[in-house]
């Protein structure tokens, strides 16, 4: 008797778990939540923000006074990003705000750097290529040596699959010399040769100190980066760009954003707010005049416009209706008591990610258990022996109904324990 109870519970758990993964997924696929956050640009001509609202079919471009612009007018107002089109129609201004506009310079300054939560809690490379940063050739070449920093700096030759002891100990010693504590916690870099030059890797050691490691003329280059007190690097985007203004940007445990200046290793903090590295999407959009930092938290956007010296020009905040506040979301909060997921948009690691959206579901759960009770009474089943299915539906709602329909754990009154097969 006890054994069958365990089996029943086990089966119920399996069915409920699967239903709570796939029913909500199917629901949201059928009724997708489409939303468009405003897109923000700063016009050097108006010296003000331009906001693009709505989807791509019906976009409206407005300034903060409510004047609307056609897309052609808009392009003329943001020559620093729309230069390709302006060159095409021959209307690119020579200078804007005293900055000389030439296409190569504009191109060089135009880039975007993203910090996505899923890339921060991400799969690490198993091994990294040890790219030569100063090759005696026109372009970078892909090396045969791959490395990882565990108990020591270990270099493996990919052709022979053998550890290169000499090279490993040279790099290990160079690291120990600068006070590096093995193993490395995380490494950042671009393990590719499809870039103009190579800046190697930025490495967090076991004591959260930050290092820059490169291979220069086959010798280790190690430089410790001085971090402000209490700052712990969480993620860095290394950007080898011809601009050579910086090595890259990094975010910290306390959700601050820094830039590491090229050559000097000076840290420049960008005054962001509303950022959480575990859930937000941060992007740095650069052009020849400005740095625009977008921070998106679900349905909220927060924009920071900085000049080239990283001083704040202006900020902008807006939000659209949250998924849970829409009718579809409200209905979902009644139907689904909880949602189970094995993947998360904020991580590349498969794990259990349960979530609960309010307590509206209790109403539906009570109604469902009531209907079930009614069914038992009408079909003249013994209610006392059906406590388990009632409890299952009361707790897990719609998922429980599926489990109970499989269990069919109800008995006729005065019967000898034989179910209604």
């Amino acid at each position, binding site marked *: 008797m006890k054994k069958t109870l365990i089996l*029943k519970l086990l089966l119920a758990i399996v069915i409920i778990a699967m239903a709570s993964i796939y029913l909500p997924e199917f629901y949201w696929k059928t009724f997708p939540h489409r939303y468009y956050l405003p897109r923000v640009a700063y016009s050097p001509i108006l010296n003000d923000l331009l906001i693009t609202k709505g989807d791509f079919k019906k976009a409206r471009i407005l300034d903060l006074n409510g004047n609307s612009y056609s897309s052609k007018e808009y392009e003329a107002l943001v020559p620093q990003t729309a230069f390709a089109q302006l060159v095409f129609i021959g209307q690119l201004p020579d200078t804007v705000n005293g900055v000389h506009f030439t296409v190569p310079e504009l191109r060089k300054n135009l880039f975007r750097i993203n910090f996505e939560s899923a890339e921060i809690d991400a*799969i690490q490379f198993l091994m990294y*290529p040890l790219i030569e940063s100063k090759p005696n050739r026109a372009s970078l070449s892909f090396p045969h040596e791959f490395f990882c920093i565990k108990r020591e700096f270990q270099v*493996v030759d990919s052709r022979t699959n053998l550890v290169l002891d000499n090279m490993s100990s040279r790099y290990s010693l160079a690291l120990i010399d600068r006070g590096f504590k093995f193993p490395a916690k995380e490494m950042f870099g671009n393990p590719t040769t499809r870039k103009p030059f190579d800046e190697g890797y930025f490495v967090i050691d076991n004591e959260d100190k930050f290092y820059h490691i490169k291979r220069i003329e086959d010798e280790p280059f190690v430089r410790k980066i001085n971090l402000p007190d209490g700052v712990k690097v969480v993620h860095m985007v290394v950007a080898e760009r011809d601009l050579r203004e910086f090595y890259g940007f990094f975010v910290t445990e306390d959700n601050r954003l820094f830039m590491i200046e090229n050559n000097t290793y000076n840290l420049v903090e960008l005054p962001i707010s509303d950022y959480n590295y575990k859930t937000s999407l941060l992007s740095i959009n650069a052009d020849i005049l400005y740095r625009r930092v977008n921070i998106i938290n679900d349905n909220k956007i927060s924009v920071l416009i900085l000049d080239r010296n990283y001083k704040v020009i202006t900020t902008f905040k807006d939000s659209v209706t949250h998924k849970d506040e829409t009718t579809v979301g409200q209905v979902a909060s009644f139907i689904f008591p909880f949602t189970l997921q094995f*993947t998360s948009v904020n991580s590349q690691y*498969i*794990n*259990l990610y349960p979530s609960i959206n309010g307590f509206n579901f209790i109403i539906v759960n009570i109604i469902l258990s009531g209907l079930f009770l009614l069914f038992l009474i009408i079909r003249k089943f013994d209610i006392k022996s059906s406590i388990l299915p009632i409890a299952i539906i009361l707790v897990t709602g719609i998922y429980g109904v599926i489990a109970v329909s499989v269990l069919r754990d109800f008995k006729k009154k005065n019967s000898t324990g034989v179910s209604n097969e």
Partner: protein
Amino acid sequence: MLKSLIYKEWLKVRWTFIGLALINFFVIISICVSLANAFSMVDASKIYADTAAMQGLFYFDFRYIPLISGLLLGIVQFYPEINSSRIKLTLHLPMKESKSLMSMQLFGIGALVLIFLVDAIILLNFSSKYFPSEIVDGITITILPWILSGLVIYIFVTIVFVEPSWSRRVIIGFTGLAFVDVYHLGTIFGGTIYTYSRSWWMFVLFLFLISPLILWSGNNYKRGVK
């Protein structure tokens, strides 16, 4: 008694078992040969770079092989039992039904584990000739859920076949499909790559949770035929 039961199972599935083993080893060996060829033709560093980034997996052909093996073995082993209700005889052996059902299922799981173990040993040993242990560990964690999914589908096939009621079979069948799917979340082409490296133990544990459910099906069957 147990010995004869296992012998009976063996007689039933031996040709399927041998066939599946051959298919498995053929796929694994073809992967190994391709890898050896790649190392002789392409720059080793390119293969390292791809594999170290967990992209362009050279062993991707293996992905659905355990799944197909589990499905086929389950069908071959349990379809004859249900067809013309032969399982009635099994359940009337002088042995507890739970014991005979569990041993039938464990026999199948054992057969699959044997095949998959050989697969994994060949693949990992061969890989470690070319790759350092960091990369071989990465391969292990990637193929583990694929292998487990073969066992999951086998277990669900046994549950569905023993279960007498069609409506239950359908729901349990869908649950089984969903369950198999959570073992294949790792690589989605054109999307984010996910890894089981933090939670693989959970997916091993799930096997122990679903395996005894065959007893519940057996219980239903017994009550149904009585």
